[in-house]
């Protein structure tokens, strides 16, 4: 275990070095922007997959946590009461508290109810964002930019610093999530997903585990929101709109929900497609909807779902896609 932990840490470190070097190897600013953007979405999707892929709970409301991270971080920075790192921690705590409250109501419910109740809470959250104008700026979102004073010599107003900071935070968050899913807690999640009754018989406090996972998932998704808020120096009500949740779910499905890196691959593909499509057409919904229909009716499995996990123990041991479908059919 210790050996694989060290190895994973080294892999994460290597990934970080490669990511930091990438824009300098050519591609420049445009590539850096794309990576930050995809990283923000990738964190939302990977955080969401803690619930969908690992616990079998389909949240259709994760955009609200994405937005709550972005908004609380932005509002704190605009009030100029804390330095950046503390503001990030505060934003994560705020999101965690919201998630604990909503999760306590939602996680007892079975899948359809869970999906729609999270969706309903998200719409409620969205309407609060629109009506609480003093703090959120209403329709316009947080305008006027988010000031980021220098801390520890990091000046987020400089694109290079911003890129390095975002990439570091992303890799750190991904590493932590990987640790979580390969821990005993992560295996408990999978047991609940595959056979909840068995988990209960084995003495697992299913409610507490699900709630913990819900809060963790929300907090990691909100990191994505914070990165996006930093990157575009603002936050908009659209962050909490239901289509954002829908896109996040599609990213998870597109990349493959049985693989830890599936959602981030989905985010890379979809944000890449976004960039291309938006330059050619205004009818983004038609295009995205068409792709989603083709995918869900034709392909049905994400890209990495086709990669069967090997015998190595260090990879997050996932059931094969077929086994997973079988359990869903049972439910």
């Amino acid at each position: 275990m210790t050996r694989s932990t060290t190895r994973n840490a080294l892999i994460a470190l290597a990934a970080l070095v490669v990511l930091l070097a990438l824009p300098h190897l050519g591609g420049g600013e445009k590539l850096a922007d794309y990576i930050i953007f995809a990283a923000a979405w990738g964190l939302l999707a990977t955080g969401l997959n803690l619930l969908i892929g690992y616990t079998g709970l389909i949240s259709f409301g994760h955009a609200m946590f994405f937005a709550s991270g972005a908004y609380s971080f932005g509002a704190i920075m605009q009030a100029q009461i804390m330095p950046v790192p503390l503001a990030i921690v505060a934003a994560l705590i705020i999101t965690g508290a919201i998630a604990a409250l909503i999760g306590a109501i939602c996680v007892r419910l079975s899948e359809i109810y869970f999906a729609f109740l999270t969706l309903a809470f998200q719409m409620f959250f969205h309407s609060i964002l629109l009506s609480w104008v003093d703090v959120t700026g209403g329709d316009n979102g947080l305008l006027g930019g988010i000031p980021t004073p220098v801390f520890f010599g990091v000046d987020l107003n400089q694109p290079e610093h911003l890129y390095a900071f975002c990439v570091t935070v992303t890799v750190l968050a991904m590493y932590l999530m990987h640790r979580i899913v390969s821990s005993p807690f992560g295996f408990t999640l999978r047991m609940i997903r595959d056979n909840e009754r068995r988990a209960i018989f084995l003495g697992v406090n299913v409610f507490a585990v699900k709630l913990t996972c819900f809060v963790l998932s929300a907090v990691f998704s909100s990191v994505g929101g914070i990165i996006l808020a930093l990157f575009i120096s603002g936050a908009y009500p659209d962050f909490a709109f239901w289509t954002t949740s829908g896109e996040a779910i599609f990213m998870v499905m597109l990349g493959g929900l049985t693989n830890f890196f599936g959602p981030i691959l989905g985010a890379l593909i979809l944000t890449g497609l976004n960039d291309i499509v938006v330059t050619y057409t205004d009818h983004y919904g038609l295009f995205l909807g068409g792709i989603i229909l083709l995918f869900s009716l034709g392909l049905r499995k994400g890209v990495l779902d086709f990669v069967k996990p090997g015998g190595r123990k260090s990879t997050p041991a996932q059931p094969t896609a077929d086994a997973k479908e079988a359990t869903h059919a049972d439910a």
Partner: protein
Amino acid sequence: MEPAALLDCLTSLSCVVTQTTSGLIIGMLFFLVAAGLTLIFGVLGIVNFAHGAFYMVGAYLAYSAYQVTGSYLVAVLAGGFGAAILGVLFERFAIRRVYGENVLLQLLVCYGFVLVADDLVQIIWGSEYLSMGMPQAFRLPPVFIAGGIVPPFYIFIITVAAVFAAVLWFIIERTQYGRIIRATAVNPTMVSALGIPTPLIYLSVFALGMFLAGMAGGLAAPIRALTPGMGFSVLIVSFVVTVIGGMGSVTGALVASILIGLVRSYGSIGFPLFVDGLMYVMMGLVLVLKPNGLLGRQEASRP
């Protein structure tokens, strides 16, 4: 928050009449949409996330039919049948392929459909708000009941929806087709073993639900602004209605939609900024106290 205003209203008969009729019309329109949603869930086991899109399509088709013919009756029928035909195509070519699949895939199919439908509506009818205008037949002076103002159109809508509720009840509870539907909801394998083509039953129930949604869109067109994406908020409220009433129960949907209609109508006086919140609080309470809904049969929480 203005509880005092609410108290004032409750003590004046004219205000009670006005708010109750406006609550009833909101509720009955939601009932038409929610009835299909709950029926489809009960029989097909699918939550039709695209339900709101059919409401939207119904409203837009009614708008166009009204522009062409000038007849409100034709407009409502065009909305209903247009949505039903679209529903048949959607069931046949998309939903049928994901029966019994995991919920994620079902949600995704509906999500994709909603995106496409919203964008197509925007391409065909434009993104500006459209207004159908009150049909000539209903441009009458409002009726005064105990001092409360009640537009004749409201009375008409409430009556039509009530008639449809009764017809729906009769179909489900008193006809052979209704018995087959109820049997399919409980045990589709047994029903098909008895020689009844269940795919056809599924298709017809889906079409029926879409007809109701499209017709509700058409009925509501004179009093609602039409915009692409208008179906989504209707979907959310209808879902709240089905949860409160109990998934799969049409009677529950009727009770819950009237309840929600009244809460929204009176809430807009007492708590104008918290109307949506009030609705979600109600849903939360029902889920905690009676997880299967007021009249539901389906299990909401797993063992």
